């Protein structure tokens, strides 16, 4: 691996001190840090004494992959953690050292995000209804819960008592009084959720972080354990991390053997999750050695020129001087005469297919990005890429489980097998379940079976079809399979009910995956079924421990129907390493932090580029360590913040591109409205200026 001098300083020196490495994205900081790890190990350092700390798990992937591939002995044993995973591990290990009020009920129940949503709906929702909270807020319940949780998380990550959430938000508010009521409601719900967590011994992310930073980290045994275990720190993208991480490091750095802190200038994309680049920069003073990398190793000269040329049009006054070699226009291609979105999609797919099939570009070197990635756009892209034989993946490889035919079939069969739940499936659902469950059964015959044999929530035997002609039409072969399934369900119903995940597993193994049934040798259906089994098991195990009296199985089915559970059920490895075009929102791609050769930016006329999410219960800038508690959030601040966010976003994207960017534009957006967003304006203004400058020369 060829490293430039400053990279070598990070990779091969300062093994006994702390290093602050800064530079914009694409200057080779991560590459140097990976080399440092190998050098440390080769010098005799135990791999498991090296900790790579990242703001989110995906940012550890380049480390894990490179270290495994390196074939350096033990390199793969380096630990990678986030603050969240570290807090979880330490709380899980050292919880007996917590104050008595947290230990009396035994080992805590650690809540996943899914279970947090569930307990929000179960424990907080009744109070929301009773008190008529949030009556003027029109967003989905899940997003509402998420923002309540977000406030609790921010309080823990920034380090203020969760009881001050409402006051903090209200004191910054300048508008009508109605909004202050919403903040009061958000506070009441946060308080209630925390109370319930304490009552049921449930530790959500915010409580884990708060207990870790405020209590366990202050305990000598825990601090000794951590600082003895991890002697060498590599901290990736500290500008994307939160004050909780920064304060931990402020106390850890002076006692560790060595550390490298990597700081991306112009970062801070996770601000809405509590990232604080300003606070991160203060750690520079704690580090003994400072290394600044300024030589781009990713962008082509044209892309570098593009990044510099567009900066002033995005409000960046202090841009760098344009390099002499690159041409900004050489870095971009854009769609022309595209009035409607489908035309723009066709244009993008055409170029992607050409890159892959004609120019031999690996699909993993292409990303398709937009400000937001609505399902319709994602679906259109995926199906058109499929038609052109270009593999693609999205940042959410699975849809909600309830939308998968295999999962729907299992859930419907579960209702049939459990008449005591009082949740009879509709004829429509039964028809679809039969087509999924029985191989070769088409919709017409499944409908006939349902119409004739589905009575009062139960399936009757095939022989109950009185007309021989109808039996022949369905065929005796299919009738026999139907009877096998029905008999299995009947036998099951007559015995003691099993937990839902066990029911799914047995039904899958003993019937559905057997020859002549719908899941036999169907790998995709098996994966969905496995995800459903995992999800139902986790739900049953957690709820069973927390509230043993709650009937977990019907509760689970109700929650799946309501979209609370199994919404984003994705096994981590499914998202990994496919040689496929990534389709993602722009910020998601940034947070993968892995450069690619080509980027496609779609709907550049959309106003969403640079705009923050509508979050009526919270506020990313006010819920920040940098916020002056006496200040008010004004419209002018909003404009400046949006402009800055757009600049950082665009600069971040360009710096993660090696060869070229395709700008997709359609005159009318998805909703049929004309698109004149700030990114489009910036691109057009830049192009006009370049023409003017050319004439002038």
């Amino acid at each position, binding site marked *: 691996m060829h490293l430039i001098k400053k990279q070598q300083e990070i990779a091969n020196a300062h093994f006994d001190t702390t290093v602050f490495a800064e530079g914009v994205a694409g200057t080779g900081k991560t590459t140097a840090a990976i080399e440092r790890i190998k050098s440390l190990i080769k010098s*005799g350092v135990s*791999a*498991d004494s090296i900790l790579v700390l990242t703001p989110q*798990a995906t940012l550890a992937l380049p480390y894990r992959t490179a270290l*495994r*591939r390196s*074939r350096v*002995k*033990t390199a*793969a*044993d380096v630990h990678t953690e*986030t603050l*969240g*995973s570290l807090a*979880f591990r330490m709380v*899980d*290990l*050292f919880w*007996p*050292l917590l104050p008595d009020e947290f*230990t009396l009920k*035994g*080992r805590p129940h*650690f809540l*996943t*995000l899914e279970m947090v949503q569930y307990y929000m709906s179960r424990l907080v929702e009744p109070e929301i209804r009773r008190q008529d909270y949030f009556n003027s807020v029109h967003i989905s319940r899940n*997003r509402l819960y*998420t*923002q309540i*949780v*977000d406030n609790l*998380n921010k309080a823990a990550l920034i380090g203020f008592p969760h009881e001050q959430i409402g006051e903090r938000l209200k004191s910054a508010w300048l508008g009508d009084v109605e909004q202050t009521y919403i903040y009061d409601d958000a506070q009441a719900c946060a308080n209630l959720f925390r109370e319930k967590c304490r009552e049921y011994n449930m530790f959500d*992310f915010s409580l*884990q972080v708060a207990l870790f930073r405020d209590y366990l980290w202050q305990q000598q*045994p825990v601090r000794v*354990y951590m600082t003895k275990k991890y002697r060498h720190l590599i901290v990736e993208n500290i500008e994307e991390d939160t004050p909780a991480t920064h304060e931990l490091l402020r106390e850890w750095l002076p006692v560790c053997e060595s550390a490298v802190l990597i700081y991306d200038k112009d970062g801070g994309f996770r601000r809405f*999750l509590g990232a604080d680049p300003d606070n991160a920069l203060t750690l520079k003073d704690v580090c003994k050695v400072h290394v600044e990398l300024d030589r781009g190793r990713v962008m082509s000269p044209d892309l570098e020129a593009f990044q510099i040329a567009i900066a002033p049009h995005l409000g960046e006054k202090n841009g760098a001087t344009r390099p002499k070699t690159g041409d900004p226009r050489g870095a971009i291609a854009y769609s022309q005469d595209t009035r409607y979105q489908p035309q723009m999609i066709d244009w993008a797919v055409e170029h992607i297919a050409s890159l892959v099939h004609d120019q031999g570009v690996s699909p993993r070197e292409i990303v398709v990005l937009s*400000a937001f990635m609505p399902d319709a756009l994602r679906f259109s892209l995926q199906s058109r890429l499929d038609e052109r034989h270009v593999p693609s993946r999205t940042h959410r490889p699975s849809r909600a489980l309830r939308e998968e035919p295999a999962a729907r079939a299992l859930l419907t069969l579960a209702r049939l097998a459990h008449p005591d739940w009082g949740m009879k499936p509709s004829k429509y659902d039964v028809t679809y379940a039969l087509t999924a469950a029985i191989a070769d059964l088409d919709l017409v015959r499944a409908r006939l079976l349902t119409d004739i044999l589905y009575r009062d929530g139960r399936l009757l035997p095939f022989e109950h079809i009185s007309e021989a002609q109808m039996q022949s039409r369905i065929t005796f072969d299919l009738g026999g399979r139907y009877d096998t399934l029905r008999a299995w369900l009947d036998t099951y119903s007559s015995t003691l009910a099993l*937990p839902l995940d*066990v029911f799914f*597993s*047995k039904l*899958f*193994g*003993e019937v559905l*995956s*057997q020859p002549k049934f719908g899941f*036999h040798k169907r790998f995709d259906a*098996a*994966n969905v079924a*496995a995800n459903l*089994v*995992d999800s139902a*098991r986790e739900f049953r195990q957690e709820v069973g421990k927390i509230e043993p009296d709650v009937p977990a199985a019907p509760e689970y089915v109700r929650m799946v129907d309501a979209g609370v559970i199994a919404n984003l059920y994705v*096994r*981590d490895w499914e998202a990994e*390493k496919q040689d496929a075009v990534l389709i993602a929102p722009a*910020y*998601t791609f940034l947070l993968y932090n892995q450069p690619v050769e080509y980027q496609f930016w779609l709907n550049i006329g959309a106003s969403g580029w640079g705009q923050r*999410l509508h979050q009526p219960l919270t506020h990313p800038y006010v819920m920040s360590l940098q916020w002056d508690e006496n200040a008010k959030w004004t419209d002018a601040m909003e404009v400046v913040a949006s402009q800055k966010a757009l600049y950082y976003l665009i600069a971040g994207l360009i710096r993660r591109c090696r060869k070229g960017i395709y700008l997709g534009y359609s005159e009318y957006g998805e909703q049929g409205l004309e698109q004149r967003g700030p990114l489009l304006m910036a691109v057009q203004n830049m192009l006009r200026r370049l023409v003017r400058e050319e004439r002038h020369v």
Partner: protein
Amino acid sequence: MNLPDDFVFSQTSLQDYVDCPRRFELRYVLRQRWPAPEVDDMLEFEARMEKGDQFHHLVHQHLAGIAAEKLLASSGDADVRRWFEMYLETGLEDVPEPRRPETTITVPLGEAMVLAKFDLLAVEPGGRALIVDWKTSERLPSAERLAKRLQTIVYRYVLAAGGDAFYGGQPIPPERIEMIYWYADHEGTTRRFPYDARQFAADAAYLEGLANEIATRPAFPLTPDVTRCRFCPYRSLCDRGVQAGRLEEWDDDEDEIDLTTFTLDIDQIAEIEY
């Protein structure tokens, strides 16, 4: 080459291969999930696994420095408590310092890597190197049988090949290595397996041969021993039966069953609805 370039073998995956090449292919090459039951009584099976996990966690907490009295006060299950008391009595007998619980070592193996995750590694620099594996199984297997298990082979080999950093930067002489299986449900009975250079060389040749065979073989056939299929979740995929085997007949030292490999992503802080 059948495997990705960052593939990592483990004792479980190698054992799977030895037991049934097709199972190895499905589970580790194709990463195909197949959620059929491994045993008939899944709840009892789960309860045993859960108790085993609880015991391992208690030991980890104890080795991390939490006082035994505090841990005893928090352990609810009678079996787990009994096992933990037995551990306190004999589990650390003659186990040298420093003690490293839950330690992983990964070393190259052929074109891939192999890892061992040790319950406890106790390596005195310049002295003995003990591998301790806590077992909570109901059955007590014979030493002859354990000696043939890939866990015994892989763990000792990996420590000899990659334990340098715990031994002052020098390779640990195989003669200094010993692996101990400690049986909680059998009053702390142990099965001990010393090591030596000859066995290390033989293990290296065997494991590299296996890795090479896996990497280059054109197909992964089903095991001819159909009795193994009773406890294999892929049995319906391979047309090798309907019902899972009986839990009473399942040899909990024979099969390492991966109940779930779902990784909890506790960093998912929501509202990422771009």
